[in-house]
C-alpha cells in the first residue's frame, strides 16, 4: 500500500537521478585536455578522474542501485560490489594495456541493457517468465566486465602517454573503486530512507520500474548514436 510519503520519496529519488545525469558522463573537456598533454605518473589526478567518472556515471550507478536493491545485509552488498569491482577492473586494465578497441556506443548500450536486466530481475521477471532464477553472482561479474570495457574505451579516447601508463591506470582504477564506494554510501542511505518511510512491495516495484525505464532510455540513446555515427 502506498502511503502519503511515497510520492515525496519517489520525487527525491528522481531528483537524485536527474542531478547525477546533469553532470556530463565520460571524461569531460578540460579533463580530456589535461590527459592529452600530461606525461608521466599523476597519482592524484587519475585517482580523482576515476572517482569522478564513477560518481557522475549514472549508468554505473543505476546498475549498482539495482544490484543492491534487494540485498538483505551489508555482507552480501560487499560481496556483490566486490564481484562487480573485480569484473570491471579486469577489463579496464586489460582493455587499455592490450589496446582493445570496442565501439563506445555499443558498450554503453550493453551497460544500458545490464540496467534493464537487473531491474527486471528485481521484479522477479526471469523467474516468472522463464522459470529460472538467474545466477546473480555471475551476472554481476559478467556485466562488471562490460562496465570495465566501457571505462577502458573512455580512457583510450584520450591519447595517454606510454610513460607511467600502468601506474596511471592503477590510480584510475583505484579512483573508480573509491568513487563506487562513495556512490554506494549514498545509495545505501537512500535505500534506508526509502525503507524507513515505507516498506511496501509497491515502492520496490515502482523504483525498479523507473530503473528499468532509465535502462531503456540509456540503451535507446546509445544505439541511436551508434547508428547515426
Amino acid at each position, binding site marked *: 500500500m502506498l502511503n502519503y510519503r511515497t510520492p515525496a520519496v519517489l520525487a527525491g529519488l528522481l531528483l537524485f537521478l536527474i542531478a547525477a545525469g546533469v553532470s556530463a558522463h565520460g571524461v569531460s*573537456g578540460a579533463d*580530456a*585536455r589535461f590527459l*592529452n598533454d600530461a606525461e608521466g605518473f599523476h597519482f592524484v589526478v587519475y585517482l580523482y578522474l576515476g572517482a569522478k567518472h564513477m560518481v557522475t556515471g549514472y549508468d554505473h550507478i543505476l546498475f549498482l542501485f539495482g544490484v543492491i536493491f*534487494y*540485498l*538483505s*545485509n551489508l555482507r552480501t552488498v560487499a560481496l556483490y560490489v566486490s564481484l562487480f569491482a573485480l569484473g570491471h577492473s579486469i577489463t579496464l586494465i586489460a582493455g587499455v594495456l592490450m589496446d582493445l578497441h570496442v565501439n563506445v556506443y555499443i558498450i554503453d548500450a550493453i551497460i544500458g541493457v545490464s540496467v*534493464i536486466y537487473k*531491474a*527486471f530481475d*528485481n*521484479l*522477479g*521477471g526471469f523467474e*516468472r*517468465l522463464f522459470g529460472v532464477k538467474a545466477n546473480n553472482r555471475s551476472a554481476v561479474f559478467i556485466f562488471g566486465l562490460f562496465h570495465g570495457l566501457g571505462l577502458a574505451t573512455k580512457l583510450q*579516447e*584520450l*591519447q595517454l602517454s606510454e610513460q607511467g601508463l600502468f601506474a596511471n591506470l592503477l590510480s584510475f582504477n583505484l579512483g573508480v573503486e573509491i568513487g563506487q564506494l562513495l556512490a554506494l554510501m549514498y545509495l545505501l542511505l537512500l*535505500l*534506508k530512507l*526509502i*525503507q524507513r518511510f515505507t*516498506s*511496501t*512491495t509497491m*515502492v*520496490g*516495484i515502482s523504483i*525498479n*520500474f523507473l530503473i*528499468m*525505464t*532509465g*535502462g*531503456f*532510455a*540509456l*540503451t*535507446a*540513446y546509445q544505439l*541511436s*548514436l551508434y547508428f*547515426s555515427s
Partner: protein
Amino acid sequence: MSTPQPSLSTRQLVLSLLVAMLLGVGLAMLIVLPAEKGEDPTGFGALTGVDKLSEPEVVDEIPLVLAPVEPVSNEDALYIRIDPIKSKAVVNEFGEPQPFVDGANIRQHEQHYKGQLIEIKIDTDEQVEYKALMEEGDVLLYFWEADAELYFDFHAHQDTGDPNFFTRYAEGEGKSDHGSIVAPYSGQHGWYWLNIAGKPVTVQLGVSGYYDEIIEIDMKAEAE
C-alpha cells in the same frame, strides 16, 4: 534492511517491461537525443525547443572559415593533438621559448578575419574575374568549385607600377581548386574564369582570411 521482493503475474511483468520500454525509448528519442546531440528524429525537439540546448555557442560577427567539408564536432577537435613547432624556435638564456618575430610565420591583426561565399553564374563562352584586395604578407584560404570544366587563370596584379605586369600562380582547366595565398605584394589576387563548357556554369567561390574586399572586374570595360 529489505523490502519484500515483489511477486508479479506474467501479465504484469510483460506489461511493465513494455511500458518501461515505451517510456525509456520515448524519453531518449523525444528529449535526450535532441537536447544532447541535436538529432531530432521525431521533430519534438524543435517543437519544444530542447534541441537548442545542443547548439554550439555562437559568437556574433565572426565569419566562419568557409570550407566545403562536413563540420567536425567540437568533441572530436579536443583530441587533435598539435605538435609544437620545433623549427625556428628561439629560446632565451633560461631556455624558455620566445615569441616569433618573423612576420612570415605569425602575424596578429586587430580585426577578426573575414569570410565570404560567392555564387557566380557564367554564361556560355563568357569570362569573369574576381579578385581579393590584399596587403603584402596577408593570408587567404580559398576554394572554388564549378559544375563543369572551366579555363582558369589564378593570378595577381600589383597596386602600383606597370599595370600590365602580373604574377601567375596557376592556370589550367578544371572544375575546382583550393588552397591558400600569402600575398607576395599588396594588390589584387584572384581568379579569371572562361566558360569553355558549352553551357552555363555555376561556380562557388569561398574565401576566408585577411583581405579588404572581394571585387568583380568588369570584363566588358576591360576589353574596350
